């Protein structure tokens, strides 16, 4: 009796937040011929260390869906009418095993027309599934092998290390030519290791030395064993890519605690969360490429207002740029082609240009990836001032490294 009660408690406790697939929104797929709605699926982290990214991605897609649905949806020729957009999201906890379950459910049960994802191992997991299902994969990944000619329906919706990092280091060097010793710290995964290679190559060309680098695992909160030898080596600026906001916040706090007074440079994070964790004074001057700051561009202001109305403060700047910026081409491609056929939309994506909240973007990268499935878009550079990101410049991707 007691054991049954305990098992019931355990089941109830685990169901809402730790079950493999937690429905955030959406309905079951409908029966019948022809599309009756445009189903956007997301397998994305909605809990855990990567939740800041996943929630931002989901909200970006939801806001775009709301925008089009307010006008009755998107006209699809096969349906002969406008179709509303459904957003169906499951929490994959940023793990491949959960991603498999979520993606299977999205593809086979919900019959989504598009599947969004987050993270390299997760993108690699979904790519063959999307190819087999004949649907477009719209993913964020730092994996060197993505995009890939073997997966022509898999697109990358964010600028990645290859596109951004060289641009960031070059910009930083122009602003701070006196800094010569830099340090790199990254997640212990393919993206993190790739980041180090790009930093070394770019920094060397600019006359800077990478005097320290190390990797850390997901869930790390104490970075002092990494910071101490870096300070001993004389690091003047720390560079990191793909670290979650709480890791960045902990790192900055602990580095300042140990006496570091140099620069921090990151990619695509959430400055106000970092500043809260690190302390406003400690985060002052934090440089972030890919995060839009104040003032919000006019094109993004309506989305900022819509975000605050729907989700409340604080505004997630990551939601606007890069995720909303990265999702707009997909919606525009559907609108232009008036089709849900993946190959038709893919061709439009590869050949067209798209107007986004951050300016004009297109898809390229064939010279590096072998296929033009990598988004190319101008990237903002923001600096943290009193806990708020302030946009100070816009840059474009540097030429691809050898």
């Amino acid at each position, binding site marked *: 009796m007691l054991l049954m009660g305990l098992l019931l408690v355990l089941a109830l406790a*685990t169901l809402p937040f730790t079950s493999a697939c937690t429905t955030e929104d959406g309905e079951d797929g409908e029966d019948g011929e022809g599309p009756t709605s445009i189903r956007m699926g997301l397998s994305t982290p909605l809990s855990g260390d990567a939740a*800041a990214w996943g*929630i931002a991605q989901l909200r970006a897609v939801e806001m775009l869906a709301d925008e089009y649905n307010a006008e009755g949806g998107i006209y699809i020729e096969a349906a002969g009418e406008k179709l509303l957009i459904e957003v169906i999201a499951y929490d994959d906890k940023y793990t491949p095993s959960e991603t498999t379950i979520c993606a299977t459910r999205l593809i086979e049960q919900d019959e989504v027309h598009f599947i969004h994802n987050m993270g390299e191992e997760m993108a690699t997991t979904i790519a063959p599934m999307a190819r087999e299902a004949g649907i477009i994969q719209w993913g964020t990944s730092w994996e060197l092998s993505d995009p890939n000619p073997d997966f022509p329906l898999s697109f990358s919706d964010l600028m990645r290390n290859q596109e951004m990092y060289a641009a960031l280091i070059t910009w930083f060097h122009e602003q701070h030519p006196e800094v010569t010793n830099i340090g790199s710290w990254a997640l212990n995964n393919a993206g993190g290791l790739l980041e180090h290679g790009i930093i070394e190559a770019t920094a060397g060309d600019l006359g800077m030395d990478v005097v320290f680098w190390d990797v*850390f695992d997901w869930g790390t909160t104490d970075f*002092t*064993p990494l910071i101490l030898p870096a300070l001993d080596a004389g690091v003047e600026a720390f560079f990191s890519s793909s670290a979650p906001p*709480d890791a960045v*916040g902990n790192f900055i706090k602990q580095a300042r605690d140990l006496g570091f007074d140099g620069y921090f440079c990151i990619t695509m994070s959430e400055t106000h969360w970092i500043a809260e964790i690190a302390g406003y004074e400690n985060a002052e001057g934090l440089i972030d490429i890919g995060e839009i700051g104040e003032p919000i561009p006019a094109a993004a202001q309506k989305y900022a207002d819509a975000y605050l109305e729907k989700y409340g403060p604080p505004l997630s700047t990551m939601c606007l740029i890069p995720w909303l910026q990265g999702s707009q081409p997909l919606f525009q491609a559907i609108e232009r082609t008036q089709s849900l056929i993946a190959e038709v939309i893919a061709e439009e994506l590869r050949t067209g240009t798209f107007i986004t909240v951050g300016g004009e973007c297109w898809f390229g990268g064939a010279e590096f990836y072998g296929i033009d499935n990598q988004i190319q878009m101008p990237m903002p550079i923001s600096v943290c001032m009193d806990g708020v990101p302030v946009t100070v410049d816009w840059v474009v991707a540097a030429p691809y490294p050898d």
Partner: protein
Amino acid sequence: MSGELFSQTLLVGINLGAFYALIALGFTLMFGIMGVLNMAHGTIYMVGAMIAFYIYGQAGLSFFIALPLAMLITGLFGVLVERFLIRPSGGELLQVWLITVALWLGLQGVAYLVFGFIARGVPPPVTGTTTVLGLGISNYRLLIIGVAAVLIGGVYYLIHRTKIGLAMRAVEEDKIAATIQGVNLNMLNGFVFLVGFALAGAAGALMAPAYSISPTIGLTPLLKAFMIVALGGMGSVPGAIAGGMLLGLADSFLGVQFGMSMAYILTWIMIIVILIFRPKGLMGAY
């Protein structure tokens, strides 16, 4: 390794060790006296951190009010857990273990609902640095060491200088004989849970300004607690203190010397080697 790096690493290691010892102390108390492997220990640490977040970070009260309040709230929660969840189970190992797992997951679920998914932070209650051994160490790290030392010292005094501590040691040695001698087991168990949970809550509140706060922060302290009690000896209070300090110094020096990922592996190898030569841990009785 330069002299300055060595000294800084030593200071950080002592700081970590004090935190680890605090985390492990409550865990080993509950196992040593009651035979309870508290899988919710890390979650109570998380609760302590969140209490500090709301009282100190959000309501703006002093951190030195938030810390004892966190201990009081988590400690009283421990009394309720022992009375209404653990005691009815009759103390069967598997059932108790399952109860604490359910508590762990349930509390984490509630934390997601109340606190949310995104990590938050609170500022340190003291700022600035003090020179120790010719090196600057942040005043907050010194505070952590000081508070942890006071709490650990308090527990040591409780166990070795008070009647209730004598009762705890008696039960740990021979439960039946202690009962015959008049020890009220139910009251004692409730007290052990109060102290164990309060220590975990204290660790969480104390470390809240040092690390980010989120519903998932309890797993690492739980893992560290297991490592330390295995290293120091299951149920041994001095072992928990020694094991905590040893692990803190190992994490610091091995991390600095070999990198964080390799340090994690080397730490486990160290524990295995120690257990091969001392299967009961450094000071274990089991």
